[in-house]
């Protein structure tokens, strides 16, 4: 009987494999083609290296590297405790905060940019206080960092919270019975155990900050070397020609893919390490 079932199912299994294969190929082609097209066009241009090393490009690349690094540090510093509290503590309004933190993921960046203007702009809610304190944000690199942090932090906090959520509570209980303070338990148990999630979140947040465009151009403006990050430079240079936009896009694609790919290799290694 089992034989007859198998012969009935095998043609269906073959169809399933074929359909799945076609779907996978379609998706891979759809997602990959635009990126491959950019890289192909950029490489076939003889001026690729010149375009990357032009002052417009290097200024934008340096600014993007600097701002995303600072944004990531801010996100890790403030986001990690917040994620831990959200995963551990039970208090009224927790779900509201939880939803609020996710909000920048689904909001258009233009809404983020407008919100930042209304809050930190010179005519904004905090504008006068900031002005009195001698803090200038409008059109400065600080504004770029604020925009990046605003749009990217949810990616880290979500992932970190999921990581802390999945920790076996007994582990932390044991640590505290052995005399660890809450902070020590957080530092020596929670952080190491949740590390893969923290890293995953950090990588996603950094990549999102690197690609940030809409909130930045609204809130920080666009000025080479000061607020014109790589995405803004791509938009700006598209008006004069394709060389620099293609070159900068290629750098973004290669770097982002590299980071995501290496990260996957690392976490797989880490995961199997824990499994054994």
């Amino acid at each position, binding site marked *: 009987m089992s034989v007859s079932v198998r012969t009935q199912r095998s043609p269906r299994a073959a169809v399933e494999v074929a359909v799945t294969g076609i779907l996978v190929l379609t998706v891979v082609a759809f997602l990959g083609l635009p990126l491959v097209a950019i890289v192909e066009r950029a490489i076939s241009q003889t001026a690729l290296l010149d375009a990357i090393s032009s002052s417009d490009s290097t200024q934008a690349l340096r600014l993007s590297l600097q701002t995303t690094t600072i944004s990531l540090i801010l996100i890790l510093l403030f986001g990690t405790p917040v994620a831990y509290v959200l995963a551990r503590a039970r208090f009224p309004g927790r779900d509201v905060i939880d939803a609020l933190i996710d909000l920048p993921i689904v909001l258009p960046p233009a809404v983020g940019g407008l919100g930042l203007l209304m809050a930190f702009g010179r005519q904004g809610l905090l504008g006068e206080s900031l002005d009195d304190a001698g803090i200038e944000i409008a059109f400065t690199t600080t504004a770029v960092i604020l925009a990046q942090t605003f749009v990217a932090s949810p990616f880290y906090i979500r992932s970190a919270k999921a990581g802390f959520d999945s920790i076996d509570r007994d582990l932390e209980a044991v640590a505290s019975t052995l005399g660890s303070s809450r902070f020590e338990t957080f530092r020596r148990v929670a952080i190491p155990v949740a590390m893969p999630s923290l890293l995953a979140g950090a990588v996603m947040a950094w990549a999102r900050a690197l690609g940030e465009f809409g909130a930045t151009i609204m809130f920080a403006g666009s000025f080479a070397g000061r607020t014109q990050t790589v995405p803004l430079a791509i*938009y700006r240079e598209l008006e004069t020609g394709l060389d620099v936009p293609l070159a900068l896009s290629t750098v973004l694609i290669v770097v982002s893919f590299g980071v995501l790919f290496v990260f996957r290799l690392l976490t797989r290694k880490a995961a199997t390490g824990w499994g054994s």
Partner: protein
Amino acid sequence: MILPAPRAILFILCVLIAAGGLAACDESDGSSSSSPNGSAVDGDVVVFAAASLTDAFAEIGEAFEAANPDANVTLNFGGSQELRTQLGQGARADVFASANATQMNLAVDAGVVDPASDIFAGNRLVVIVPAGNAVGLETLLDLANDGILLVLANEDVPVGEYARAFLEKASNDPAFRPDYADDVLANLVSEEPNVRQVAAKVQLGEADAGIVYSSDVTSDLTEDVETIEIPDALNEVAMYPIALTSEPENEAGARAFVAFVLSAEGQAILESYGFLPVQP
């Protein structure tokens, strides 16, 4: 990470494929609609117009549709340089209205716009500062003061090009200093992609000053900004050319639209928005 069930993915893909198919059908239906019928025209007329024309062309579009009930005007506004780039990358349009000759000529050179263009309007530059003028900008000379946050359009945007030409002209004027342009540009904090973004940054009070067209000081803007006039001798008069694209899908509609812009009615609308009409 939670992955949705394979069936859910399959469903989403089917929906996407179906939507794509419908969109394709829709497109093939819409393209067969251009037959001039007497004086009135019909079908879609897609107009790419400089950002400074936003309000005036919105009204011209409505007036054109009123005169041609079967026609439908679709307007796409942006910096002229951005629209020219979009046209060069294959964007479909019937009419291109640029804020300067530079971008129109580049579009002609790229083969995407008909070389026969008409100047349909003029415009003048004006300096705007936020209402209240907290930093005390009174004269054009004050633009060179230390610490002024100045916003201009980038130099590929027509108004950005005109603004820099004005600064150069002023530097050569005895009433200004020879390094006036350099000092003013040292205050530049952002180079915006079109004139409306310059106006918005000043309207929000983020910037202390910006240079826009006088037609950009619309009724929406007047309560939020103050203007500093630029004398005629130093002012740059922007000339706006309009032309058909090289392969308009609705040629009759496009010609009728251009004729309407140049007509007394079109010119009156442009004038009411602060443009300088070119037809008597």
